[in-house]
C-alpha cells in the first residue's frame, strides 16, 4: 500500500465521479487532437500539392525599363534584358548545393510568330516536362510526342479554327495539331504549345530560354536558400519565389488552426473547471476520510499527493482515450477538410496527453490545497 495505490483504489469506489471528472479533459483533448491532426494533414496536403503542381521559383532574365524619347517627345519605353538565358543555365541551376531539393527545372521559350495568317505566341517546352510542370492541362486529342507537333490553346484553336489532326503554317514549316487544350483561364489559352527545339528554330535562337520554372520539394524546404543560390549561379537572372499561392493556402490553414485551437481552448477550460468543481466536491465529501489520514500521520503533502495521483490517473486515462478518439475522428474526417486520410498522427496525441495531464493537475491544485489545509479535528467531527 502506498499513496499511488490508495488513489487508484479510490477511483474504483467512485466510478461515475471519476468518469465525470475525466469527461471534460476527454472532450477537450479529443477536440484538440482532432483539430491538430486535421491541420497537420491539411498543411501536408498543401505542401504535397505545391510539390506536385507547378513551380515555386521563377528564373527570368534581369531586365531594366528603358525610356525612349527625343527632347520633350516621349516614345514610350522598353524592357532591356541584361543577359539572355540559355540552355547552359539549366546545368548551373542543377549544380547548386541544394540541388537534391529540386524536383524539376523546366526551360521555356516564348516567341511571337505569324501562324496561318494570325500573329500568335508560341510556347516551347520539352514534351516530357509537360506532365510534371503542367499536370492540370487537359488535352482534347493527343499529347505532344514528336517534333512538328503542336497543341493549341483553346482560344488559339478558335482563332485558327483548327482542331486535332489539323495543320498550321509558320516560318515556312507545317505543324500538325496533336491536340487542343481545354480552357485553363491562363495565358496559354491563347498560345500555341510546341516542342522547345521547334520554337527555338522558329525564332532562330537554337539555345535560347525565355525563363525557367523550378520546382523545389517544399516540405520544410528552404526556398529562400535555393533562390539565393540560383541567384549566385546566374547573376544576370532574376530569381523569385512564387509565394502568393503558398501563402493564401497557408493563411486558410492557419485560420482553421486558430479557430480550432480557440474551440479546443474553450473546451479544455471547461474541462479544467469540471476537474476543479468535481475534485472540490470530492474533498468536501471526503472531509472525514482526510481527517483520518491526517490523524494517522499523513502530512499535508501526502494529502496533496493523494489527490494529485487520483486526478493524475483520471487525466491520463481521459487524455489518452481523448487523444485516440481525436485521432480516429481526424483520420475519418480528414477528407471533409480537403486533406487525405494518411496515417494517425502521434505528435498531437503526445502533446494532447501532456496538456490533459497538466490541466488535470492544475484543476486539482486549489482543491488539494484546501484538503491539505483541513484541520484533523474539523475533519473528524466524532472526536
Amino acid at each position: 500500500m502506498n499513496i499511488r495505490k490508495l488513489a487508484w483504489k479510490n477511483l474504483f469506489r467512485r466510478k461515475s465521479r471519476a468518469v465525470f471528472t475525466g469527461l471534460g479533459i476527454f472532450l477537450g483533448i479529443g477536440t484538440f487532437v482532432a483539430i491538430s491532426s486535421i491541420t497537420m494533414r491539411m498543411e501536408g496536403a498543401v505542401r504535397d500539392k505545391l510539390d506536385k503542381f507547378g513551380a515555386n521559383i521563377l528564373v527570368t532574365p534581369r531586365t531594366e525599363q528603358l525610356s525612349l524619347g527625343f527632347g520633350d517627345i516621349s516614345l514610350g519605353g522598353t524592357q532591356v534584358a541584361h543577359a539572355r538565358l540559355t540552355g547552359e543555365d539549366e546545368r548551373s541551376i542543377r549544380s547548386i548545393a541544394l540541388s537534391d531539393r529540386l524536383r524539376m527545372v523546366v526551360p521555356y521559350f516564348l516567341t511571337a510568330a505569324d501562324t496561318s495568317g494570325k500573329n500568335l505566341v508560341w510556347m516551347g517546352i520539352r514534351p516530357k516536362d509537360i506532365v510534371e510542370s503542367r499536370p492540370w492541362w487537359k488535352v482534347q486529342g493527343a499529347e505532344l510526342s514528336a517534333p512538328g507537333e503542336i497543341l493549341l490553346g483553346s482560344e488559339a484553336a478558335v482563332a485558327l479554327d483548327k482542331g486535332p489532326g489539323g495543320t498550321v503554317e509558320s516560318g515556312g514549316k507545317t505543324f500538325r495539331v496533336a491536340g487542343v487544350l481545354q480552357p485553363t483561364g491562363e495565358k496559354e489559352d491563347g498560345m500555341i504549345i510546341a516542342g522547345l527545339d521547334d520554337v527555338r528554330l522558329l525564332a532562330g535562337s537554337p539555345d535560347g530560354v525565355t525563363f525557367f520554372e523550378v520546382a523545389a520539394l517544399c516540405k520544410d524546404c528552404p526556398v529562400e536558400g535555393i533562390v539565393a543560390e540560383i541567384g549566385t549561379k546566374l547573376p544576370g537572372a532574376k530569381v523569385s519565389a512564387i509565394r502568393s499561392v503558398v501563402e493564401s493556402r497557408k493563411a486558410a490553414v492557419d485560420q482553421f488552426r486558430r479557430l480550432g485551437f480557440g474551440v479546443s481552448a474553450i473546451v479544455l477550460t471547461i474541462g479544467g473547471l469540471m476537474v476543479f468543481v468535481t475534485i472540490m466536491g470530492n474533498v468536501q465529501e471526503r472531509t472525514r476520510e482526510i481527517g483520518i489520514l491526517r490523524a494517522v500521520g499523513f502530512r499535508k503533502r501526502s494529502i496533496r499527493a493523494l489527490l494529485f495521483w487520483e486526478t493524475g490517473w483520471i487525466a491520463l486515462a481521459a487524455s489518452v482515450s481523448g487523444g485516440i478518439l481525436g485521432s480516429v475522428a481526424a483520420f475519418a474526417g480528414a477528407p471533409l477538410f480537403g486533406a487525405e486520410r494518411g496515417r494517425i498522427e502521434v505528435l498531437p496525441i503526445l502533446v494532447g496527453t501532456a496538456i490533459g495531464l497538466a490541466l488535470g493537475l492544475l484543476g486539482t491544485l486549489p482543491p488539494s490545497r484546501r484538503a491539505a489545509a483541513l484541520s484533523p479535528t474539523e475533519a473528524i467531527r466524532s472526536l
Partner: protein
Amino acid sequence: MSFITLENVSMTYGSNGTRTTALSGVSLSIGEGEYAVITGESGSGKSTLLCLLGGLQLPTEGRISISGTDLSTFSADNLAGFRGRTIGFVFQAYHLLPYLTARENVMVPMAIDKKSSREKIERAYTLLESVGLSGKEERLPSQLSGGECQRVAIARALVHDPPILLADEPTGNLDSATGDQILDLFSKLHGAGKTILMVTHNRWNIERGTRSVLLRDGRIAEDNPLRPVHRASRPAVPAQAGG
C-alpha cells in the same frame, strides 16, 4: 515520571462575539504506561482534551508536552509525523476506509512509509493476527461485524507501534460482550506497556483503567487512581450492534 504533561491548558473556539471555552486552565500529568479513563458529561471538554493530547490541534493557551517534547514547537507537518509515530487513534465509529480490505486499512498509515510492500503486508498480517482477525484479512469493512471493525481500527492504530493509544468511546457502537472483548484487548496492550487514554461515558469501562479523570465545564473535577479490573462483572446489556 511524567510522560504526557498539560500545563495550564485552555482551549477557546470561535471569535469575539461567539467565544466558547472548551477547556480552562487544565493541568494534568500522565505517566508512561498509565491507563487513564477520561469521563464527563457532553460538552465537558473530553473531546477537546483528546484532540489536544493527540496533537490534532494546539491549545490557545498553555503547553502540552509528550515525552518531554513541547508540541507547540512542531510545524503542522512535523506534528503529523510525530503523531503518526507516537500516537495511535481508535475512534468510536472505527473510521475505516470502506473501499479497502481489513489488511489494506491496517496498511493505510504505512502508505507514506518507505518500506517495501512485502514488509508492509507482513506487518498488517501480524497485527491482524494479534487482534484475533486471522483469516479475515481480505474482507471489506462491510463484511465484518462492528467488533471486528474495531479490532481492525486497533490494529491500524498499532501499525507504528506507538507508545500512546488514544481511544474515543471505543465500545460506544458495540454490544456489551463485544465491548468487553475490545476492552480486554486494551488491557492487554496496557499490559504490554502502552499508555492508554480512553474517553468514555460507560462507567464499566472506567474500571479497566488505572486512573479516572472527570471533566466538568472544561475543568478537571476529579482525578483518582484506580485499581484495574481486567474483567469487570457487569450486568448483561442487550446487544445494540453486531459483534
